[in-house]
């Protein structure tokens, strides 16, 4: 399931409801990304996430579909917030459920890695030195590239 929201959400409540009552699930992995109060030496007052409505949902759905194609997931949840957030607030939640732990953990890592480089979001930081757009990181490209499938044959 994909949810893109301008409202605050509660990761723990989402995790509590995720795969609740299912007895076929052996492992649940989750990742929560939060706004930090600094980037290196620079203090962050707030973060505003801009996104591309429509394309965001479409890309996230494609990424979820790809995860389900690669791993036998029993459930899958991605929540991503946009708008203005302060340090400590959650930006993104990824949760995966599978019969076994490796599938849940790998799919969770895959989802956040691909989301970071493929979903159309942009971060604007309000710092004590003014506002600035966050630049894309080469390390995120490298993390996403780990999951590119090599052509076979």
């Amino acid at each position, binding site marked *: 399931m994909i949810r893109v929201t301008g409202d605050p959400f509660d990761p723990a409540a989402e995790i509590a409801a995720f795969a609740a009552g299912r007895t076929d699930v052996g492992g649940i992995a989750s990742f929560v*990304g939060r706004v930090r109060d600094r980037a290196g030496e620079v203090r962050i007052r707030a973060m505003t*996430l*801009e*996104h*591309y409505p*429509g*394309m965001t949902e*479409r890309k996230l759905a494609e990424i979820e579909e790809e995860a389900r194609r690669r791993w036998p997931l029993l459930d899958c949840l991605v929540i*991503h917030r946009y708008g203005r957030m302060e340090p400590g607030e959650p*930006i*993104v939640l990824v949760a995966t459920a599978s019969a076994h732990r490796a599938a849940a953990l790998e799919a969770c890592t895959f989802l*956040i890695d691909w*989301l*970071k*480089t*493929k*979903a*159309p*979001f*942009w*971060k*604007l930081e309000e710092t004590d030195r003014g506002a600035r*757009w*966050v*630049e*894309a*990181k080469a390390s*995120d490209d490298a993390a996403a590239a780990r999951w590119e499938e090599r052509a076979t044959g």
Partner: protein
Amino acid sequence: MKIRYFAWLRQRTGLAEEELEPPAEVHTVADLKRWLADRHPRFAETLAAPGVVRCAVDQEYAEDDTPVGGAREVAFFPPVTGG
């Protein structure tokens, strides 16, 4: 055709979107960029820098040689930084 700009490209062009009718000789993303560069001088330098501007045609990532004929919506934006 709706042209959309996101993040600091939006700030650079001064608008989030505009409805335009590119001339018939605009076949590809590259053609569209050249045509838009004339309309938005501050956008021109950005478009010229390699790897800085990404594009989506009808909400799918596109390259310079992607056709834009018949597209309803073309978007320009910097590399994504979500998550």
